[in-house]
């Protein structure tokens, strides 16, 4: 049975192809600055060529063998986003990034971590807020005792 092309699969391969072409152009610039096989751009250039060959095989041989549904442009984009970043995953990544930014802005690990844990648990497991709160407290205390007190690890 023929395999189906996943939504956004070709777009992702093309994105990687664009990145690879950019990488090759940068490596060529390095090789022009310092020519020769021992140039600091020689290995990146070689790797770029390997990546390019692989991607060309993926796009023009492997992907073409797969069954692809005929869709309008807007539906293709929407399906690709829904496949790669379903609602739950997109929201969780968003929460993760907010947590990282909170750490960067100096809110502090011991404040931002319980908030991140509780909010993300409540999002993924609604109707169990008491258990989520209990789990958050246990986890934060365990992290503090194990990492800060026993392992002497500096927390963010």
């Amino acid at each position, binding site marked *: 049975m023929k395999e189906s092309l996943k939504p956004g699969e070709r777009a992702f391969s093309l994105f990687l192809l664009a990145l690879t072409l950019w990488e090759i152009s940068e490596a060529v610039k390095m090789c022009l600055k310092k020519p020769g096989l021992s140039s600091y751009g020689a290995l990146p250039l070689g790797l770029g060529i*390997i*990546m390019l060959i*692989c991607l060309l095989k993926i796009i023009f041989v492997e992907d073409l063998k797969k069954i692809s549904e005929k869709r309008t442009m807007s539906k293709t984009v929407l399906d690709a986003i829904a496949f790669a970043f379903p609602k739950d995953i997109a929201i969780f990544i968003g929460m993760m990034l907010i947590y990282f930014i909170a750490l*960067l802005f100096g809110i502090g690990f011991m404040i931002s971590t319980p908030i991140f844990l509780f909010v993300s648990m409540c999002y993924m497991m609604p109707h169990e807020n008491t258990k989520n709160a209990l789990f958050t407290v246990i986890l934060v205390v365990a992290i503090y005792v194990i990492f800060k007190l026993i392992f002497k690890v500096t927390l963010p």
Partner: protein
Amino acid sequence: MEYLLLPFQQPVLLLLIAVGVFVGIYVAAIPGLTGTMAVSLLVSFTYGWNVNAAIALMIGIFNGASYGGSRSAILLNIPGAPAAVATALDGYPLAQKGEAGKAMGVSTIQSVFGGLIGTVALVLCAPLISKFALKFAARDYLLLAFMGLMLVGSLGNRSIAKGIFSAALGVLLGCVGMDVMTGLQRFTFGNTYLMPGINSVVAMLGLFGASEAILQIRTKDLPIIKQKVDKIIPNLETVKKHLRLTIQSSFIGVLIGALPGAGGSIAALIAYDQAKRTVKKPEVPFGEGAIEGLVAPESANNAAVGGALIPMLTLGIPGDAVTAVILGALFIHGLQPGPTLMATTPGLFYLICICLGISNIFLLVFGLTGIKITTKLVEIPRGRLVPMIIVLSVIGSYALNKNLYDVFWMGGFGILAYIMKRYDYPIAPAVLGIILSSMIEKNYKMVVILAETNPAGFMGTFVAGLFTSPISLVLLFIIIFSFVVQSRWYKEWQNKRDKKRQM
């Protein structure tokens, strides 16, 4: 040799091995958490420790995790780790018949046997390979690294092109930063953070930890299956009956584990396949709860632990993803695994061997106890597990350099690896590429400089050397062979041959 007694002279090492095995078993028993992830996290916390203590803990986790995946494979039909995929084929049918305890007991005993055979193989083979590896030239190391990347990129992946792309991407990521010879910057965009290069531990935490956590969200709503498990210790007759299969599968495990990039998952699948071919009359057919279907993969995947450590310690090439992480940890501790390791720090080798041996004893103890904890752990909902993994990855990525940008890089790698996994790009080759990148670059430069200073030029030294040196020739042959056996033409020829045989 006095290092063999070290864990007995320093009980803290014994304690760390025990803790490692315990943590390894229970981490790998939780679907979605792997030994690689646990060891990656550990590297960031233990870099300041005494190297012996860090090794004891890492080896314990490695061995424990190689076994732990079987528990959720038996109880839930979800392999806790890739090495337990084959275990689920017969383990789960046994659990459905109400014999989960028996299945878990058999897998424990077989894992211990396999682990001990792997340890013996490590002790006997590593010194010989290490002596032989001293004859390797820079060209051979370059070929060896490519062989590792080629194998990890092609074995077990649906698309060889995606595997090799991932491996090349990993090596490229390892090239970011200042060139070691010229000091010129590559892909840094003038950013001082990128000048020392991408931190391999941060990359590993993102690629293995964060990405897996994000991926697990997809299954957060799956119902939890509760299991009832009572008796676990198997009878002696069962063990005796399958001893031959245990030894056969353990040897397969050691051999496959020692191949750079292959690892326990492939070893277990090959051993399972081999058992199906060699066991003529199993009590129950394979796939329906055959004990032989547990014996083969479980002894093979733990024997592969010792096997995977052989190329890591003697050649500086990791046998699988976990040994890639352990290799990174040894670099952080200022050690240089490779053929000179035996000569410069022989104690370290013997310490690893004894830690692995002892970890098998702890595996027996923890494997036959704590069934209730296992059943509770595998029931932890993903909704609570995922945020916990992210927080641990944040702590791990920050702990190394105390730099919050590392946390963002970890997250970035996590998202990239998640998307790659969604579109079937394997992640292990990328990690191996990052780890091997400095070795590839160093040996490549040595080969080129040698060629440039030789009147015969590049063709006369490197290319001619490939065909005149027996070591290079063998390595080149393996690279070509591993490429050919994955090709469409070879597979078509193999199918035709199999059809002819059946006729």
